[in-house]
């Protein structure tokens, strides 16, 4: 039979409605050929059947997943270039003993200069992005700085023939400390001794400026030396030298998945403020480990954390207070029982039972030590690992510990317990009525105190258990929905990536319905709406997100105030402005470029624009002054508007076609002036959290990563570019999405290779043109129109700034305010032309808009200028409406399946 005949008959029949019509046609078309008729009939039948595998996605969602997540599991390893028996340097690989996100660990044999077994850690082939290389280098450097009997020693480091770095370290054949303590039945005293050693090792590292950042039992191995257990801290895989800016938000979140279990992660680590990790984060992890040593279980449930989505995980770690170890021990059996069945929890139960048999209770002092180490607020933790060790030793020798604010009775109770015999003897010997009664009264008070305390604790425990049950149910429900929502968002992101806008929209909308109280889902949909230029929808979603308490200081809020202004959501605009301004009321240093830009979008009597303008002027010249401190107020006596402050020619850009680093960061050279440092001084005093905030803000401003890391390893960014579309950069999610997800790995890698602490400054890296534009805007709002125009003119002359014509509308406003109507009209004409250009470049392609907030600001300014000067609003551009209609069509069209 001819296939083409079959096909054409089938297709024609398909167009006919009804079985009879089709049958009729089949008979006439196939004539005598019964087999042809049957085969077409079968085709038609097959066509109408619904269970066609081709209609399903090729693999179900989530089908790709790793078989073996456990780094040390026995499952077959990924293909790799390193085979057992190969040599790397002078080391022969013998056995693979571990595998992490990017590293492989082998047991290897060294021939020269000594023969010994070593551990060799080498990065996986194919994962050698600049980011990873830099991390590896940091690790190697970090380890080399340490020398401590409880830290695995590093012998050697190098680079393989295929440019993968490796290092060679002491091979520690031990078991994780928790496992060791379980198995060997150590006494409490012995456990604590061992643990105090670990604290000592961590303290040593901290003194060398090294933070481990991934302390967990599998990184603290115990071996027996003769019969004495010795703990060794291994794997400084995520260590970083203090003061080096290894992480930015994006890199950090990307690495989250590699860091592994969040069980031992401190709240500040979980919070993604990656820049902010210090030694106290390790103290927290030590606290978690001690908790586990004492109770046989971790403070948070392993299973729960592992299955929670990223945000839920963060919330748990940051907000939930785990029960004290002693309380955990008494409730552990009940809590564990229902989860019997999986191997891990079974072993936990067995261990817990054993633990509770062994020690009827955990002394409350240990509770305090653990809880102090695990304080959510790191200020309240131990200041050092040595401090924690000292407290443990104090406990062991029954001295008063520091962990609890010492009350007199507490100290006395301690003293009495330590010298019980002495006191008793003294009481017997002196036999004075007075002392006798004092002593017995004292004993009685201690006894009563203890009893009351226990009763209170019991009541508390019952109460909190009931509350916990209710709360847990709620949390479970919420987490369930959150998980679904996260899955939806994940799929929708993929849809977006594949430009299936309708499907993406549907996904986000379903997520919104599922967890309407969760601001993140609104933000997700809002961003899609932004891409589609559906400003009203975007603003509405953002408004919801804000009302749900979305934190407003992240880079993803860049441009939102302008959006609110454009869509005339004045309440939302006021809310966002007052929220961001609040922290700056008594801390003018907190005023950043992005904050200023947020505030100047419309005039507002509530806002002290003079203050913002002064700050902008100070920031404008700040790059030349690093760490300067002066006693003066936010603005020096002369103010920033003296004649010497005129914008000199020095800050004009060179003739180069590309913005060079120099062109950007070089502030106008100017003679040092006496009042200048004073006016800048306070701006740089607080470099801690602000630096981070500002840097994350940068990510949203189209500043590619290696802008910040010019000494780093990353090459030039291959996407985005200086003014590139990068508005998502700072919005972090697991597996973080770079500029539109198109960036090649490593293009942001430069961040890692930043130099030492000296590189850190509280200055945002913004193109000078944009700094001037924002400063001018602030001066305009502050009423300094001439000064504003100066800034705008300089900004507008900048050829490299593609949106330089943004300034015309603002100049028009300023000229109008000065009463220069002709000039104002002239500038307005230019602004009209600029709008026209922008509109003519508008494309329905959702990925076409380079910097959406520049676009919205342009609309906004043009509207204000037109209204001010001509007295009427500009007409809504037809091209804008057309594009929005196209966008809606895009949503509709793609939402319905092709068949």
């Amino acid at each position, binding site marked *: 039979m001819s296939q083409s005949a079959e096909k054409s008959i089938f297709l024609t029949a398909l167009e006919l409605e009804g079985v009879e019509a089709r049958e009729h046609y089949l008979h006439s078309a196939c004539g005598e050929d019964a087999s042809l008729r049957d085969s077409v009939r079968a085709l038609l039948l097959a066509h109408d059947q619904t269970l066609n595998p081709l209609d399903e996605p090729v693999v179900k969602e989530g089908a790709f997943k790793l078989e073996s997540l456990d780094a040390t599991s026995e499952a077959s390893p990924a293909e790799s270039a390193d085979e057992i028996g190969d040599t790397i340097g002078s080391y022969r690989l013998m056995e693979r003993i571990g595998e992490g996100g990017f590293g492989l660990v082998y047991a290897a044999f060294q021939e020269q200069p000594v023969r010994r077994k070593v551990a060799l850690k080498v990065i996986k082939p194919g994962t050698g992005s600049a980011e990873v290389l830099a991390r590896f280098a940091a690790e190697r450097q970090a380890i080399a700085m340490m020398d401590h009997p409880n830290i695995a020693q590093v012998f050697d480091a190098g680079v393989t023939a295929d440019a993968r770095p490796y290092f060679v370290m002491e091979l520690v054949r031990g078991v994780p400390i928790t496992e060791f303590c379980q198995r060997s039945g150590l006494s409490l005293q012995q456990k604590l001794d061992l643990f105090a050693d670990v604290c000592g090792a961590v303290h040593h590292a901290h003194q060398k400026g090294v933070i481990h950042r991934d302390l967990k039992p599998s990184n603290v191995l115990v071996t027996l030396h003769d019969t004495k257990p010795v703990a060794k801290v291994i794997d400084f895989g995520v260590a970083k030298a203090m003061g080096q800016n290894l992480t930015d938000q994006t890199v950090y979140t990307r690495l989250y*998945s590699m860091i592994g279990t969040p069980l031992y992660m401190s709240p500040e680590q979980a919070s993604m403020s990656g820049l902010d990790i210090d030694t106290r984060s390790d103290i927290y992890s030590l606290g978690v480990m001690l908790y586990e040593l004492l109770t046989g279980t971790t403070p948070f449930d392993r299973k729960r954390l592992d299955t929670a989505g990223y945000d839920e995980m963060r919330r748990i770690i940051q907000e939930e207070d785990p029960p004290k170890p002693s309380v955990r021990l008494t409730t552990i059996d009940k809590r564990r029982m229902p989860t019997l069945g999986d191997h891990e929890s079974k072993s936990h139960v067995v261990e817990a039972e054993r633990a509770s048999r062994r020690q009827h209770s955990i002394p409350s002092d240990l509770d305090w030590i653990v809880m102090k180490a695990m304080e959510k607020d790191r200020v309240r933790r131990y200041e050092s690992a040595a401090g924690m060790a000292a407290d443990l030793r104090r406990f062991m020798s029954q001295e008063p510990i520091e962990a609890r604010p010492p009350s007199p009775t507490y100290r006395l109770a301690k003293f009495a317990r330590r010298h019980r015999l002495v006191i008793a003897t003294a009481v017997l010997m002196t036999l004075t009525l007075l002392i006798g009664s004092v002593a017995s009264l004292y004993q009685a008070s201690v006894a009563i105190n203890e009893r009351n305390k226990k009763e209170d604790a019991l009541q508390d425990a019952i109460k909190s258990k009931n509350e916990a049950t209710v709360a847990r149910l709620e949390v479970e429900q919420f987490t369930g929905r959150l998980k679904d929502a996260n899955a939806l968002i994940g799929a929708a992101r993929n849809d977006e990536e*594949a430009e299936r806008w309708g499907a993406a929209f549907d996904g986000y909308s379903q997520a919104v319905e599922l967890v309407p109280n969760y601001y993140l889902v609104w933000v997700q949909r809002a961003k899609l709406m932004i891409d589609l230029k559906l400003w009203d929808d975007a603003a509405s979603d953002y408004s919801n997100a804000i009302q749900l308490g979305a934190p407003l200081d992240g880079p993803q809020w860049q441009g939102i105030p302008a959006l609110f202004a454009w869509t005339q959501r004045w309440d939302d605009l006021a809310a966002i402005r007052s929220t961001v301004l609040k922290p700056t009321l008594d801390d003018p240093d907190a005023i950043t470029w992005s904050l200023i830009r947020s505030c100047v979008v419309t005039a507002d009597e509530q806002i002290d624009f003079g203050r913002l303008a002064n700050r902008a002027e100070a920031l404008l010249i700040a790059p030349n002054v690093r760490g300067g401190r002066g006693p003066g107020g936010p603005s020096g006596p002369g103010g920033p508007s003296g004649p010497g402050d005129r914008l000199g020619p020095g800050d004009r850009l060179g003739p180069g076609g590309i913005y060079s680093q120099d062109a950007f960061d070089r502030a106008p050279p100017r003679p040092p002036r006496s009042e200048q440092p004073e006016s800048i001084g306070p701006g740089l005093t607080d470099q801690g959290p602000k630096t981070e905030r500002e840097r994350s803000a940068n990510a949203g401003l189209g500043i590619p990563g290696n802008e910040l890391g010019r000494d780093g390893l990353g090459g030039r960014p291959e996407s985005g570019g200086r003014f590139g579309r990068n508005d998502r950069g700072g919005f972090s999610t697991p597996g973080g999405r770079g500029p539109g997800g198109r960036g090649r790995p490593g293009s942001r890698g430069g961040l890692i290779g930043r130099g030492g602490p000296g590189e850190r400054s509280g200055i945002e890296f913004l193109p000078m043109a944009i700094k001037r534009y924002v400063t001018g805007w602030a001066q305009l709002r502050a009423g300094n129109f001439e000064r504003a125009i100066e800034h705008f003119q300089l900004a507008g002359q900048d050829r490299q700034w593609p949106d330089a014509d943004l300034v015309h509308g603002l100049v028009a406003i300023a000229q109008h305010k000065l009463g220069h109507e002709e000039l104002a009209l002239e500038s307005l004409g230019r602004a009209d032309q600029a709008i026209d250009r922008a509109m003519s470049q508008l494309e329905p392609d959702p990925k076409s808009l380079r910097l959406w907030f520049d676009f919205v600001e342009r609309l906004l300014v043009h509207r204000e200028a037109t209204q001010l000067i001509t007295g009427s609003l500009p007409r809504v551009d037809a091209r804008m409406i057309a594009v929005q209609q196209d966008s809606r069509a895009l949503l509709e069209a793609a939402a319905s399946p092709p068949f």
Partner: protein
Amino acid sequence: MTSNVTQILSAIEAGDRQAANQLLPLVYDELRRLASQKMTQEKAGLTLQPTALVHEAFLRLVGEQDQRKWDGRGHFFAAAAEAMRRILIDSARRRNAEKRGGGMLRCELKDDDVALEAVDCETLLSLDEALTKLAQEDADLAKLVELRYFTGLTIEETAEILGVSSRTTKRNWAYARAWLKRAIDSRSDESEN
């Protein structure tokens, strides 16, 4: 790597038949590597979809600059679709073997094996078989199905890549879809009887 693939694509464009053979293994390796890497990195519940994978592979292999002006992407997607098919089918075969082998003969599963359900495996394998048959009848139709099914391209995208109108693509798809279903069903009828 980037330039390598770009060169091959240019060669194919220029009519070099041999070049197409060099493309597949490169794409196949890249997809596997990407999948494996993704899975390691994104264990926290992120899902991975073939479509996204293929797109990423394209960006990585062909490169950012070239992608807009590049009109040889059809060859790339064809190769990617075939590579994806092989990866999935290999996975399904290993799954099946593992199931049959029980605990005795533990089949070697790869890190980047796709966690297919048993149902999926059966379906995939029978679909693969039917698709092979279809390719003997009409190679272009089989290619269309590969593109649509294994890389998740839409009708419009597929049409663009194959250089035919979307109406034709739609019709061809309808025919191929019914054809394959008929082939799968008749085969399972045989095995039941």
